[in-house]
């Protein structure tokens, strides 16, 4: 068909609409529920699976379908169903089929514990169009369930994984690294290699976000997240690859951001709908002033008008302006309004944990001396040039000239 004069078969990424002039909405995340059958110690969103109050507040299937229909009209090609555990919703299969019939591909983020024969068959017959993403919490029952606090969840997850393998439903696995399972990384990666659809090593979550709802779970998450040094040891365990990757990255994305707080693409061409119909710029940012109520409006208005205004918000916190605003580690640091909200309840408060992680990485890369503060470094451009090799190539050019 590639050579046909009438029709062209191409990758979704080659279609014109993904370049330059994108549709108003290219992709959308929908949190189908905040409830989960696991009770993971590090998770910022899981409510108990039988939380009736939460269930009552959740969007109805009809409301979700209305959002999906509008998403399709706006040009959306990909929807991510996440949660909580999205498969926990009784009408998940119905919503999934509805979305696929709109011609939208579905990303599913799941723990795989609720994938039974029937669901595996459904995914085989009507493929999501995108690889299912499964988070694995440990390679042994003991470590896995020490994280999920759900007896039997290890067996259920492995059963789900095996059903997908049997039915040849494409999926990938990713890890959440915690003190309970951090010794199992090698074993996890070896196992991941046996999954036919893993075309690169698994991704990991380890610098966990606190809880946007600001309840007691926040203190528990603080206790289980890795120290910046432990995280650095994991990130840099493939030293050569890490340095190569960071040299390229740092050459592109490192500079102080001033009073601008949104330097990512959040809210442009997409967003996240929470379980209750609130439209957010990204998954983390749940500050009440930054969310748009879809029960009273539309995706279009949210993106075209509301999000545009939110993205114009500037930092006013002097601590942020004096540190983050002047810090050249911007690209290395995960500081953003979403993380600030998750940790502190405001949009522009420096997150100490993320700052320490960025500084550890910068020290490892030779951008900072131990104890130096990046926002105090005047000659940061020269340091970046030394790391990325720009200084050397400039010299070489001069030598040739």
């Amino acid at each position, binding site marked *: *068909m590639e050579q*046909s*004069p*009438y*029709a*062209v*078969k*191409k*990758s*979704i*990424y080659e*279609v*014109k*609409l993904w370049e330059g*002039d*994108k*549709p108003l909405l290219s992709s959308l995340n929908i949190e189908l529920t905040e409830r989960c059958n696991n009770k993971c110690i590090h998770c910022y969103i899981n409510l108990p699976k039988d939380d009736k109050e939460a269930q009552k507040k959740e969007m109805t299937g009809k409301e979700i379908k209305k959002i999906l229909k509008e998403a*399709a009209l706006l*040009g959306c*090609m990909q929807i991510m169903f996440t949660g909580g555990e999205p498969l926990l919703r009784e009408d998940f299969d119905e919503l999934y089929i509805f979305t*696929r*019939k*709109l*011609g939208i*591909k579905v990303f599913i983020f799941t723990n795989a514990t609720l994938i039974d024969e029937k669901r595996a068959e459904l995914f*085989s*017959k*009507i*493929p999501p*169009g*995108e*690889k299912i993403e499964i988070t694995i919490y440990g390679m042994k029952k003991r470590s896995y369930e020490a994280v999920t606090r759900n007896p039997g969840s290890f067996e259920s997850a492995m059963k789900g994984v095996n059903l997908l393998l049997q039915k040849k439903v*494409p999926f990938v696995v990713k890890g959440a690294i915690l003190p309970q399972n951090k010794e199992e990384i090698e074993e996890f990666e070896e196992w991941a290699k046996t999954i036919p659809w893993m075309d690169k090593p698994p991704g990991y979550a380890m610098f966990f976000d606190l809880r946007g709802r600001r309840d007691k779970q926040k203190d528990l998450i603080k206790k289980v997240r890795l120290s910046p040094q432990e995280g650095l040891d994991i990130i840099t365990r493939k030293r050569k690859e890490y340095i190569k990757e960071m040299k390229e990255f740092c050459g592109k994305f490192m500079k102080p951001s001033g009073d601008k707080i949104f330097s990512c693409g959040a809210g442009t061409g997409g967003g996240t709908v929470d379980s209750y119909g609130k439209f957010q710029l990204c998954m983390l940012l749940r500050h009440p002033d930054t969310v748009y109520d879809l029960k009273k409006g539309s995706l279009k208005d949210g993106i075209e008008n509301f999000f545009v205004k939110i993205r114009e918000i500037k930092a006013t916190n002097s601590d942020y302006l004096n540190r983050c605003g002047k810090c050249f580690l911007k690209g290395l640091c995960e500081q953003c309004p979403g993380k600030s909200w998750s940790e502190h309840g405001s949009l522009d408060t420096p997150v100490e944990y993320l700052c320490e992680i960025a500084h550890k990485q910068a020290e490892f890369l030779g951008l900072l001396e131990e104890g130096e503060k990046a926002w105090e470094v005047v000659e940061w451009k020269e340091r970046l040039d030394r790391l990325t090799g720009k200084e050397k190539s400039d010299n070489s050019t001069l030598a040739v000239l």
Partner: protein
Amino acid sequence: MEQKINIKNTYCQSEDVVAREIHGEFIIIPITSGIGDLEDELYTLNETGKNIWDRLDGKKSLKEIAMELSKEFDAPLEEIEKDVAGLTEELLVRRIVLEV
């Protein structure tokens, strides 16, 4: 896999695909397995392809479709028949259209 096309026969769009027009691209997206590849493949039709696709309604024969297009675009019937049969054959192989 060869599929014989008969210009006198009638064909319809499969219910296993969805056609969407987004930003000027006319895209056919498979929603069940066995049509195209699972990962990120989809099909886009050009203007000629779209005009033919819109008429594959399971009621009109390919001959009738060609006559309709020939009239509408003031083009030689023989040429249009070749286009209609050509595209339908490609789509039939992919199970994007079915013979009625």
